[in-house]
């Protein structure tokens, strides 16, 4: 329970950061997807189930900002959280570069799925949309998330797995 409570608080904090600090640090209209990175980190540091639950919650909050596609982020963030949790058993999850790489790849995957769904499965439009935003957002997110993970470990050690069990 404490695990979810911690992510609940973190999700609000991250959304605030996205809406305030990182809204001003956008590069060419590209912002880091910190809330998505949090869902990925939750899955990566705990389990697939933890990733799905946190991803669903963050998707719910993200969907509130986009009523036209309400439900889309719930679906995609859950999938991304699950994917992060599923791959974490095969990787060194304590390594910041590994975490950054997984975050970058999953942000790219999220962007790709989103582009396809938003453009109603039009391949050309989806590809253009994806190329326009996702690579930049993935790099930016991975960089910020890796730095955050380097700074945070003392405050947020890898104990979630025990907390969940």
């Amino acid at each position: 329970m404490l695990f979810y409570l911690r992510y609940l608080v973190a999700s609000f904090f991250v959304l605030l950061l996205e809406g305030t600090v990182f809204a001003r640090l956008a590069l060419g209209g590209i912002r880091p997807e910190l809330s998505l990175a949090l869902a990925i980190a939750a899955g990566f540091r705990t389990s697939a189930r933890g990733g799905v639950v946190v991803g669903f919650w963050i998707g719910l909050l993200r969907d509130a900002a986009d009523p036209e596609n309400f439900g889309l982020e719930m679906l995609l963030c859950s999938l991304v959280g699950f994917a992060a949790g599923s791959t974490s058993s095969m990787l060194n999850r304590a390594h910041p570069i590994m975490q950054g790489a997984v975050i970058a790849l999953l942000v790219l995957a999220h962007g790709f799925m989103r582009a396809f769904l938003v453009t109603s499965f039009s391949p050309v439009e989806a590809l253009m949309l994806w190329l326009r935003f996702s690579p930049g957002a993935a790099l930016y997110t991975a960089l910020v998330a890796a730095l955050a993970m380097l700074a945070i470990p003392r405050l947020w050690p890898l104990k979630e797995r025990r907390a969940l069990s």
Partner: protein
Amino acid sequence: MPRRGADRPGLIDWIVLAAAAALGLAFLLAGSGARIDAACFLRATLLRPYRLVLGFHSAAADPWKETRALRREMAERSLDETRLEELVRETARLRDLLDIRAAGGRSLAAAPVVGRQSDGFGEILAVLRPESAGVRAGQTVVGMRGLIGTVLDTDAEEVRVRTVRNGALQVNAMLVESREVGLLRWRPAERIALLEGIPLHVPVKEGELVITSGYGRIFPKGITIGAVAAVRDDSTSLARSIRVRLAEELDRTEEVFLVLD
């Protein structure tokens, strides 16, 4: 050895994923109204603290920018207001002009007022010469509400108009109800317009309309000059002196119309 993460996903993990995905898909496939309602509900409940903090941040982040934006908006609104007022005035003027055309059936040439002068007898207006119209001395000039005067002289650019507030101009005027004709003249010393030559036996009411009589063929008949303001009976004379309140507000006239032949 790399530190190992969680175990591979089990059945429960897949069930949780399926439930989350199904819920997301259900919302996604629901009607637009339901999606918007759900999003609004979330904003009003779960995201309320977030929006409060975000709103505070936006307001406090750059007060100078906010103030500048508000000032600019105020200035723009003020300009818009002035523009609107000007449009209202212009519309009223155009309506009056249409009334003049409809009532008189005369052909008019508009000329904006560009200056005010005075000679020894009173007021002279300088107006821009209308491009297409033929202008000559003695031509009648009217305003929105009534008679302005006659053309005194003209050059290539300007026309000088001697107004009814000039003692050198005499107008043959008629009382509308009694049909009596007299001579209207401006008294510069007293700054009043007097209608003279109306016999004492003719009943005159305050407010009675005074128009041009058409006598002498200087002014066309039926142009409003003003209304009776006061009646003075002089015991030494056989005629009345009638003070006329001019219909045209000459101090505020911005545009006049030359009556074309």
